[in-house]
């Protein structure tokens, strides 16, 4: 799978309250959650983000609460992938489980706001279309790849339901 999109750059320790403020957790609607994505720290984000755009961030992206509303709101904005130096644990598993692609990359400081990236998930390669630089990233371990290939955790659950 290949995706292409414009970079939205964020810093370290972007937490789940930054991604979706708790006052909007009284809904589970993806579109509504998407409309408040990053509202507190970047009010223009949800209005200007385009389908396929890519979030690039520093350390510990998604730290804080277990709210799955956070990756759902990002996915709901049409974001095709989040690239960060590291991810917080619960955010990581939530994203895997709902099928929002995450990539760990140490060289994110070389990528600037507004640049265009192309990500080849099968080859594990990110290409910066502005600078021409390419980066290799580690693909998921087999266990997680299996969850993703199955279409997320609930597709596995569906198999259990059908067996019963």
């Amino acid at each position, binding site marked *: 799978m290949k995706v292409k999109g414009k970079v939205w750059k964020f810093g370290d320790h972007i937490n789940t309250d930054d991604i979706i403020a708790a006052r909007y957790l009284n809904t589970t609607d993806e579109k509504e959650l998407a409309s408040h994505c990053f509202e507190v720290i970047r009010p223009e984000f949800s209005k200007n983000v385009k389908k396929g755009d890519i979030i690039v961030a520093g350390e510990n992206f998604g730290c804080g609460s277990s709210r799955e509303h956070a990756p759902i709101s990002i996915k709901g904005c049409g974001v095709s992938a989040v690239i960060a130096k590291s991810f917080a*644990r619960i955010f990581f598993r939530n994203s895997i489980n709902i099928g929002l692609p995450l990539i760990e990359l140490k060289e994110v400081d070389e990528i600037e706001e507004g640049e265009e990236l192309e990500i080849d998930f099968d080859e594990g390669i990110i290409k910066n279309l502005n600078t021409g630089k390419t980066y290799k990233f580690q693909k998921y371990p087999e266990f997680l790849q299996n969850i993703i290939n199955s279409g997320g955790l609930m597709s596995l659950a569906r198999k259990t339901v059908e067996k019963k």
Partner: protein
Amino acid sequence: MTISQKILAKHCGREEVFPSEYVECSVDLILANDITGPLAIEEFEKVGAENVFEPSKIVLVPDHFTPCKDIKSAELVKKIRDFSKKYGVKFYEIGSVGIEHALLPEEGLTLPGQLIIGADSHTCTYGAVGAFSTGVGSTDVAYAIITGKLWFKVPETIKFYYYGKLNDYVGGKDLIIYTIGLIGVDGANYKSMEFTGPVIENLPIDDRFTMCNMAIEAGGKNGIIKPDRITEEYLKEIGLDIKIDENLKTDSENDYEKIIEIDVSKIEPQVSAPHLPSNSKSVREYSNVKIDQVVIGSCTNGRISDLRKAAKILKGKKIHPEVRCIIIPATQKVYKQALKEGLIDIFIESGCVISPPTCGPCLGGHMGVLAKGEVAIATTNRNFIGRMGHPESYVYLSNPEVAAASAVKGKISHPEEV
């Protein structure tokens, strides 16, 4: 293996597990609340599931926006209430509900050696009784309530060894926010935090809950304390006569990834400044910070011993005229006990308001939301941007004595000042 690794091994039917491997484990208890439960239920329904794997192992606790603050939150609570009726799952109605991480231990649902998951990041609280307990997402919960199982990456364990004599007004809250300050908000990302040493061996159970509760604020997968005499006494107190498995301990020092030693005699009451829990320093460093609101409560510090500590400071004193002080007993049982001991009288006499048990202001939900520019000191666990209300409001974190003393003085204060 460490305690955490042993519990995971036992729950995937293996003699041994190794850090970084992925395992699928059976779980003993699954928790969701009014925010995360509805999403899990939607996923459950989407795949056409007709049954939960075991109703007695699933608990739904509507504690975040309750008593319901608006129509939308009422709809969410209705969703988990209806689900619980349909599938025979435990649900705590208003009148019996409390803040989940104070309520479940009180109800005797969290036990040493168990593997517990909850769609709430502070599920790590139950490590205080020696359970492997960790926060997950709603889809995880949906999968687990159908299958009884969930995937885990086996974590490395960091040992925290606390020694020395505790200073006055220093407790579990100070130890944990000091520790987070030391290692940072991702200092234990993906890892188990095992709290050990002579200080922990003598630390009361409520302080242990506070410490394990905030493991997530350092990125920890779980916090855990080896169950011991204090755990056993606590379990007896809540009516459970349980012999603790002697094997629930870490085998060797070599099993830890890292050992961090902390001399507690150097730790003064701590305050974490906005906007990260890791911004912790001695309360004296913030003595000129004026405050508008004080919140004493939450899954971190809303237990009876926390209220006793606050009441001891507030007895015979008045809350500063320009400060609002909100007291939130974490559960009905805590509330009732506080009434019985006369703590509620002390709070009301001094000018506090008492809220029903709820997460409420901790996440800026209701019952004490901040306006632009306002400053609060709270015994809660997070001080992210906008956490308690307006994006330009400010939250400082502290223990109950510091919060109470600050409420009297109108600015952040050391308890010895009142």
